[in-house]
């Protein structure tokens, strides 16, 4: 077959596109070269082999009865973690409501830009930094954790709430008003049925994320199961770390399953 017979499936690139591609490729090369050059890849591994550590993490706690009582104790700490996520999530859902109304284009009007900016700013701060701040302000403990979760969750809940407010269908409201309904009736029968399932589903989704986040918050002393996790990890007490890992994985997978079921029923 001659070369001429081949069909080119892509369109010809213009000079501008070619320059653009070269620029992108060059800057990416530079970025990666710099990052590989500046990064220190050394590892300080322990004397024991990975196999031994994995055995101590996941097998010993299950077969050695001396570690069984600590499953109960860590289970309660996991429940505290879940309580932090829940209390923080409920508070965040309440705090997010006015912000979302402000940020939605149809209800906030010109100020919606302000609300969106505020929500974006919160979302670009990692939850751990909120943890650092609130532990510094009110001392270590689960109260700091609830505060961190609630403020951190406003960003995402507020954004999703405002999007669902923006997508409200005006037709039922107009119909209720046309048949003589007042504002309260228009809200109760026209708006609420549209947004309530979505709001519940959003808050539940965020709760799943918050359970993970409040596990992490323990690292800075904000209560829950993260606190014993980092302590046992520092002491290289792998059996205890293993108990915590197993507890967290089991609880989180179960919560995700239940919450996912409820959410698929809601919407």
């Amino acid at each position, binding site marked *: 077959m001659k070369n001429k017979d081949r069909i080119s499936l892509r369109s010809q690139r213009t000079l501008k596109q070619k320059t653009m591609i070269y620029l992108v490729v060059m800057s990416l090369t530079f970025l990666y070269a710099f990052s590989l050059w500046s990064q*220190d890849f050394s590892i300080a591994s322990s004397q024991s082999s990975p196999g031994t550590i994995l055995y101590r993490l996941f097998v010993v706690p299950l077969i050695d009865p001396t570690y069984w009582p600590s499953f109960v104790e860590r289970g309660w700490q996991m429940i505290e973690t879940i309580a932090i996520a829940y*209390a923080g999530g409920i508070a965040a859902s309440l705090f997010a409501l006015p912000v979302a109304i402000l940020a939605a284009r149809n209800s906030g009007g010109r100020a919606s830009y302000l609300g969106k900016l505020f929500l974006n700013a919160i979302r670009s*701060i990692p939850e*751990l930094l909120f943890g650092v701040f609130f532990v510094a302000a*009110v001392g270590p403990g689960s109260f700091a954790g609830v505060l961190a979760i609630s403020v951190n969750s406003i960003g995402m809940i507020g954004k999703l709430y405002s999007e669902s407010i923006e997508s409200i269908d005006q037709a039922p409201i107009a119909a209720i008003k046309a048949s003589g309904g007042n504002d309260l009736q228009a809200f109760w029968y026209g708006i609420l049925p549209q947004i309530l399932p979505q709001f519940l589903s959003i808050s539940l989704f965020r709760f799943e994320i918050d359970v993970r986040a409040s596990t992490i918050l323990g*690292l800075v002393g904000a209560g829950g199961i993260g606190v014993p996790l980092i302590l046992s990890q520092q002491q290289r007490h792998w059996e205890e770390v293993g108990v915590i*890992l197993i507890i967290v994985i089991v609880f989180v997978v179960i919560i995700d399953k239940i919450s996912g079921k409820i959410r698929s029923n809601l919407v």
Partner: protein
Amino acid sequence: MKRKKTSSSKVRLFKPSFYIKLIGVSAGVLVLYYLAIRQTNASLARMLSAFPIFFRMLIEDFFPPDFGYFPTVVNQLIETFNIALISTTLAAVLAFPLLFFSSSTLNRHPLSYGGMRVVLTIVRSIPNIIMVVLMVAVVGLGSVSGILALMIYSAAILIKLTSESVESIDERPIQAIKAMGGNTPQVIRYGVLPQITPIYLSHILYVLEINLKASVVLGFVGAGGIGQLIRRQMSLFRYDRLGLIIFVLFLAISVIDYISQTVRSRLA
């Protein structure tokens, strides 16, 4: 003429069962909230009353930041960015072939498809700190453990996000290529890739944003990055330095989020 009002002419917009459900759900939510508050001692009133403390804290302790500490922070920030960049890149490479196994349009083998799905769901639901602790335990202290942990986690996110896009692609080019006698690699190259590449790139950038935020955690358990500075300064109660770290980190993340979102909005 005045319309006569009788109870029978009243229109019921909601069924009675709706109200029962509404009350039941609200009661359940409130009972759980009461239990959670008892456990954490964090009532709404206590939360609101704590706000003056935060402002005093911000003004007196975090402000003014210790700018002399800036070079150290930037050094660690570069490491944090490196970890995020390298782990995202490795995840993108790792996720790409797996993508085709985990989308039902291309992989019609129920066992491998279902297996992929289950593994992905479990990996994504595990908090990333668990993965990091596991990696530090098995691999050792250092940024490599952090990179590996974030890589696994972000590969799972990438596959999940993109396989949904793969499932919703336009099937007609694929059928056309098949009709002209194209084999599977050709179908992927000319039928699938042109459709999913922009989406995939956009998801990679999104995962980079997530990883940058997640990599703050790594330093706390000895997996490199800016977390180790936060931990040290926290235990020394140097809030002026913590203020600087938080400020610099917020700035860096905002800039990268902005760049990434601009590129993503042009891609998709």
